[in-house]
């Protein structure tokens, strides 16, 4: 009944990639041009919020361990929270740029969730390596929304923030052992069963 875990990873990787590409497009053409059509302003925050909502079924149905459940719950809440705050900023319900610190906090919590839920060392296996990589990427990337909250027009912060999501999407595509890019089943996992 449930789709294989790798399919779910690819689904979310696609969502995160779209989110990153929207941000990148906004960074390249500039916010003023990007927002000439009002709906575009809601695109990436809405996508983040939707991904957060969609993460809840993952959290509840993939319950093969407690740590999976907790980590996916943390990502669901952080995505919803970060998306909600950005939507509220765009809509004008929130005004202070300090609210952008929420995004920085969400990246830190998400990064920590990656690091805590992966208890093996970097080179233990590919997914371990990628979990560490994603965790540290998110932790370091928290500096971009931090800079945006004090210097909203900083091009480096905008592009860096956008690229964070693009990079995370690529990592997510590669995260499972049957990923199409580097695809194979581990010898320890025995004969392929999918």
């Amino acid at each position: 009944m449930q789709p294989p875990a790798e399919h779910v990873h690819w689904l979310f990787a696609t969502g995160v990639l779209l989110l990153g590409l929207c941000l990148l497009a906004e960074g390249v053409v500039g916010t003023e041009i990007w927002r000439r059509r009002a709906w575009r302003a809601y695109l990436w925050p809405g996508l983040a919020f939707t991904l957060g909502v969609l993460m809840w079924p993952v959290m509840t149905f993939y319950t093969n361990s407690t740590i999976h459940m907790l980590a996916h719950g943390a990502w669901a809440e952080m995505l919803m929270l970060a998306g909600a705050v950005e939507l509220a900023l765009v809509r004008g319900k929130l005004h202070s740029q300090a609210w952008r610190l929420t995004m920085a906090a969400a990246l830190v919590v998400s990064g920590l969730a990656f690091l805590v839920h992966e208890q093996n060392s970097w080179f233990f296996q590919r997914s371990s390596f990628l979990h560490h990589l994603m965790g540290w990427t998110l932790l370091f990337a928290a500096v971009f929304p931090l800079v945006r909250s004090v210097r909203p027009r900083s091009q480096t912060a905008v592009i860096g923030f956008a690229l964070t999501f693009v990079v995370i999407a690529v990592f997510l595509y590669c995260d499972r052992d049957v990923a199409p890019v580097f695809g194979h089943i581990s010898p320890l996992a025995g004969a392929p069963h999918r």
Partner: protein
Amino acid sequence: MRRALLVATVCVLALPAQAFAHATLERTSPGFEQRLPVSPRTVTLHFDQYIERLPHAIRLYSARGELAVPRIRDKGRDLVATVPQLRAGGYTIRWHALSGDGHVVSGVFTFGVRAKAPAPTAAFGASGPTRTEDVVRWLYFLSLALLVGGLGFRLLVARRPLPGRFFAIVGFGAFATLNVGIAGFLLRAEDALQLPFGRLLYGDLSPIVRTRFGTAFIAMTLGFAAVAALVFLAWLTDRDVFLWPAFLVGLGFASGLSLSGHSAADAGSSWTSELADWAHLSAAILWIGGLLQLVAVVWPLLPEARRATLLAFSRLATVCVGVLLAAGVYLSILRLPQLDDLWTTGYGQILLVKISLVALAFAWGGLHQLRAVPVVARGGTLPRLRASIAGESMVGMIVLLVAAILVNANPPH
């Protein structure tokens, strides 16, 4: 340097992975909660990857205690235990194995031989709900009151936009409902698995998820995540159109507690007991959630709306009290058919405490209805009315605490 780092990264990504993640139990024989016509010769656990056998990897328990398992062997992805001839009854298997990633994975499941298998939450060794679970259940009730009761107040009583504090309270209720629900589920899993926290992190939750309680947890988590999204959209767009579905979905998914508790699982339960339990819970959260909104939002922030809101709330509260009483009396008779059960059993004694507190809350509410409402209806004011309503809501919250203890207690059979 950069190029070397890039090449190294690509190489690591392309290297054969050693394992998928930690081992996951794919299936067992006997199956989870399976009823067998005869004693099994072996118990087999099949994992999704190779595992290593640890000492006492499979432990077998009957209702009387642990039974000796003569032989355990690992065979590829299988862990197989030879078991002695089992008499009719329920049995519990506790297992642990060394996963390919170095983590010890653990779990529990139950089966029955010519008898119904116990639920994993009632597996041998599980001690049942603790005081911590009582507190978590109470917090869950409070969260529901903030969320669903708050929404009900806005739609059925106030019927007008309320200040931002309304959304702050309801939003906090949604956040708390989701997180307290997760905490409650993990506490129950911890008790069933009987594992210290470090090993619980890698404990297999799937048998717990398959129970009535686990199914309710999944449904309620998904339902309240949707409610949280709808509440946020209502705040973002200033449109009531999102509030009604949020309220109805919230009220509907609150039934998860009724569909997985005593009213659904105990002997004598039926759809009427489930319905009565849900009506009882719904009336309580609407009443207490409404009182909190009255005290925290309307009284301090909307003085011009106090009169109309108090009059409308008193009508809703009357309906809630009627439903609470009717459903409560029906459920009490169902669970305690003998009157002396009230003072001779632990469950009955907790119920007596609850009835006393409910009587106090009703008396307090009645006082407001008889003394305060007529004065406010004439346009008058009463000093310290807000404090008095706050006092009533405090008693209501204490009632919820006793209700939480009662829900986790076992009624006499």
